[in-house]
Structures are given as C-alpha cells and as structure tokens.
C-alpha cells in the first residue's frame, strides 16, 4: 500500500498493518485529533454538514463494496435507505420501540431485502441486474406510501430522537460523535473486509466471473454476501437518517438519492474506500459550494429561484466530466499528486496504473 522509498516489509506483521509507516501514524493521529475536536470549534452549520457527510458515508461505503468491489450494479440504493427508515419509523410508531431495537431491525430488514434482490443476480448480470434493483426501489417506495396513506400519516411519520441508556441524542454534537464512531467502525470493517478472502473473491468476480468460478470461487455465494452486506449497511443508514431528520416521508427517497450515491462512488473513484470517503464529502458539500460561489458573485436576488436547477445541472455536468475525463475519480487525482510529490524532482510512473 505504501510507496515511500526506503520502506521495506520484513515480516508478516508489517504486511498486515493497515497503517504502515511512522509518518502515516502521525497523519492518522492528526486526523483523529482534528475530527474529534472539530465540533468544539465549528459552527452549528458546519457540524450539520459534517453529520450529513457521516450519514451518507455509510451508504456510500456500502455501495462501494457492492459496485466498486464486487462489480454488481445497483439502482435500488434509495429504496434500501427508505426500507431502513420505514422499518424504524413503523416500529417506533406501532410499538414505540427503542433505538437499540430499531437499529438491528433495520439491518435485518436490509438483509432480507438484500437476499431477495440478490437472488436475481445469480442469473442476471450487468444491466439486467440494475433493472431488477430499480424495481426494488419502486416497490419499497410504494409500500412506504401505502403505509403512510393507510395509517393516516399522509404528510410523513414523526420520529423522536433516539435514546441509548440515559443519553438522549438530540444535540448536533452528540450526533456528530455517535456517527463518527459508527463511521469509523464501518470504514475499518470495510478496509479489512476488502483485503480478506471475501474481498479478494469480489474483486475476482468483478474482473471476470467465469474466470473467478474456474479458480474455485463460489460466485453465487459471494455475490449474495455482497448484496446482503451492502443492503444491511444501507438500511442502517436509513435508520440513522430517520432519527436524525426526525421525520420519514417517501418524498425524501427519490431516485435522485440513488444517483447521488452512485455519483459519490464514481466521482470518488470506483474500487477504493478512500474514494467513497472523498466522493461523499465532495457530493454533500457541492450544493453548499455552489451557494457560496453564488453569494460571492452577488447574483441578483430574482435569479435565486433558479438555484435548485443550477445545482441539479452542475451535479450532472460534474459527473459527466469525471466519467469521461477522469475515470479514476478523485482518488486517481490524489494518487497522481501524491506520487508526484513523493519522488519530486524525479518523474515517477507507477507500474500498471
């Protein structure tokens, strides 16, 4: 993983380390310190932004595992988020279930849906699979809407803030730390998973499923694992989303949400957890960046009604630019920059990249 010159791995322990050199340790601890102390200095707006990033990050990592590593296309991600959110909301409304029940329940719901909609993947590939996951989206949204109208929550379902033991998580700072811990666990889990047997099997399937099968990889099994795992993580995002917003309604889970998740992993760079992190930060912050730049340019107020459309189209435009011109995504750019400065003033071209 590391490319620092003069660094050689001499035993297996070093080969297993996630953080390899001392400078990386220093960077890692600086990063930890920065994110831990961030809410103490940041404004309420910035904390809200960070919480949004953390929320989306779980879903983006989940999609990255499924699409970026296992190579299975999914267009049903918003549907899975909705499934998690609705499981939480319904359990809360009907049985007044606490957070520690709804969270695993949402995960379980995700697992079931992942299993059901992973099953077609055993026969289908590529585009066909994308279409079957698209139908998952519409079916989940329909069921959610039916529940809303049947039970008389036509505008949406209100959810109270979660409670863990004596602690009620309502304050934005508490949310920040809760999600920080969850995100940290999810990322470490994902990083370890993709270099384990399962992750290697996924990458083999992504490369060529027939060849993977010839190597003795049980393709069907690993595809299903990818689907179930990704759905569980996504549904958990949905559960947290429901609690953070305090409000669940089908309108929030449009196809655009799926597109946002897909844009996160594409712009970040497929096949890299770091890419998922970078892409999530970029996509969540993008609309605010556009707002800020519009403020700087002092655009007349009557044009501000067009802001939504401007954000929407620039989102599509940026996605096109990345897909056509920089398929490696933000991670590709970052690696090139790093390689450049690592060996400056010499030219360096990584082998096989």
């Amino acid at each position: 993983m590391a490319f620092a010159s003069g660094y050689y791995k001499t035993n297996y322990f070093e080969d297993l380390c996630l953080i390899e050199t001392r400078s990386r340790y220093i960077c890692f601890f600086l990063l930890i310190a920065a994110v831990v102390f961030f809410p103490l200095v940041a404004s309420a707006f910035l904390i809200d932004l960070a919480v949004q990033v953390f929320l989306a990050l779980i879903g983006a990592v989940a999609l990255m595992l499924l699409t970026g590593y296992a190579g299975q296309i999914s267009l049903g991600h918003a549907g899975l988020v909705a499934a998690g959110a609705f499981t939480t909301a319904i359990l809360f409304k009907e049985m007044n279930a606490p957070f520690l029940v709804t969270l695993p329940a949402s995960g379980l719901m995700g697992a079931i849906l992942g299993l059901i909609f992973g099953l077609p993947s055993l026969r289908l590939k590529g585009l066909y699979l994308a279409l079957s996951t698209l139908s998952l989206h519409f079916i989940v949204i329909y069921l959610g809407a039916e529940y809303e109208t049947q039970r008389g929550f036509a505008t949406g379902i209100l959810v109270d803030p979660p409670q863990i033991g004596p602690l009620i998580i309502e304050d934005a700072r508490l949310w920040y730390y809760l999600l920080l811990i969850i995100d940290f666990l999810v990322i470490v889990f994902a990083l370890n998973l993709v270099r384990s047997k399962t992750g290697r099997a996924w990458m083999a399937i992504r490369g060529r499923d027939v060849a993977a099968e010839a190597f003795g990889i049980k393709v069907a099994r690993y595809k299903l694992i990818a689907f179930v795992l990704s759905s569980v993580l996504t549904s958990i995002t949905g559960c947290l989303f429901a609690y953070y917003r305090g409000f669940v309604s089908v309108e929030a889970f449009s196809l655009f949400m799926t597109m946002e998740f897909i844009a996160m992993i594409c712009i970040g760079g497929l096949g890299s957890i770091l890419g998922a992190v970078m892409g999530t930060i970029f996509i969540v912050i993008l609309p605010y960046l556009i707002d800020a730049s519009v403020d700087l340019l002092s655009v007349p107020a009557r044009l501000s009604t067009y802001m939504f459309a401007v954000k929407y189209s620039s989102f599509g435009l940026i996605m096109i630019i990345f897909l056509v011109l920089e398929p490696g995504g933000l991670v590709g750019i970052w690696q090139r920059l790093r390689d450049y400065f690592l060996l400056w003033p010499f030219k360096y071209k990584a082998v096989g990249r």
Partner: protein
Amino acid sequence: MQVTINIVVLGSLYCLICCGYVLIYRASRVLNLAHGEIMSLGAYFLFTVAVSFGPQPVISFILAVVMSLVLGLVIYQFLMKFMVGEAAFAAVLVTIAMGILLRGLTTLIWTSQDWYPLQYLGIENASHTLMGGAVVSTFGLVAIFSFVVLYAALFTGFKYTRWGLRMRAVGENPLFASQRGIKLHRYYAVSWALASFSAGAAGMIQACDSGLNPGMFHIGLKAFPVVVVAGLDSLAGVIPAAFIVALVEILAINYLSPQASEVAPFVVLLGMLLIRPWGLFGTKEELERV
C-alpha cells in the same frame, strides 16, 4: 370497452417510447437511462415552437420533431461518442448523469411550471365517442396512428433498405461491420437520432394530451419494464410487451389504486426477470453479453 381503449392508447405510447431504448441498445449495447428526459425535451421543443410561431400546428410539429432528431445527433456527437468501446456500465452511468443534466437544464429554461402546448397550437383535444360508449381523445388516436406508422416504417426500413441492413450488421457485430467498411459512428449516431425522434414524438403527444412539466421523465422510467419484457434487443417484442404492461397498469388503476399503478409495471419486470430474463423475444445469448 373504455378499459380496452385506455390500454390501447397507453400501449401505443409505450411502444413509441420504447423503440428508442431498443434502437440504441441494439446498435451500441448502451441502455439509455436518460430516455425520459429526452422525451420531455421533445415536448418542450414543441411548446417553444408553438409559443414563437403561433397557431400553426403542422409547422410546429415538424420543427419540433426535427429539433429532437438533432438533439439525438448532438448527444451522440458531443458525449456518447467518447463512451464507445468503454465498459457498458460506464456508458450507462454517463447516460444517468446526462439525464440529471438535461433535467436540470429543462427546469432552468422552462421552469417547473405546468405548460399546455395545446393552447398555443390553436387545436382542440376533442374527445370522440366510439361504439360502446368508449371515449378517446384526439391525441390518443394520434398516439395509436403514429405508433402504427413508426413501427411500419422501422420494420420496412430495417428489412429492405441499405441503411437498415447496415444498422443490423453494426448491432450484430461491430468489429466485423467496421471491417466491411461500415462507419460505426455514423450508424450509432443514426440510432441515437431515431431514438430521440421517436421519444420526442411520444413526449409531444403526451404533452398535448395532458400538459407538460419536468415530472414527465417518469413515464420514461415506467417504460423500462416494457423493454425488459420485450427483451432488450427485440423491436418486435416491444409491441406485445407494451400492451401487456399497459394492461397490468390500467387494471391496477381500476381495481387497486392509482399508487399501485406506479409500481405495477415494475412487478411485471421483476416477474419477467425471474422467469425469463431475456424477455419474450430477446435472444438468450444477450444475457452473457452485458
């Protein structure tokens, strides 16, 4: 009787929309997820032309149709051309991004208001009573008529003309086709233009029938199940598939709820994928190709 008429009208509309998916897919193995947006753009073209030229329906329709034809060419020339030879997944993602861009631009230019092109065209959408007391609107009839004309033209075109033959060859095997001197880019561009043309026409008819707003692209998404039931690479399969999906949808409206009709086509899609993933008339080998 009324139910039958509704099914026929909706089925014709689906046929008009779906032939675009199939044309592009057969030629270049790209599933165009921005089809709904292209369709609503066609309708917006009609609206713009109608507003600027006043009540001259024939000229307006011709101009709008030409504009959507050009739109397809432009999309291919400036965007999809770069995705030829890339992984199918990347190309599909580009069409998704293009859809978002087009939708954003549509809202930017025409706002998200409801528009009714008919009131600028100076024609009425009269309703006609058929035998048995069923009612059909003028543009419902137009939908049926243009579906019949378009499919007749496409089938004869593919079968008997040189261009049709070449397009089939490109779809069959692009490598061999280009080795025989067929210019791939030209035929890919033609498939995009034809798809955009037919989608635009469908959009115009739909807009004249029931107004126009950016939410229209949803019809394009609902047309997906039709293509899958047909088999992604089968133009002939679209016709029965469109009527099956229209049947299910209309029955869902009548006997379940309007909400259920939104999801009914997707239930059909899922069932089809489980039983016969390559569709009614698609080729089985197609499953391996994507």
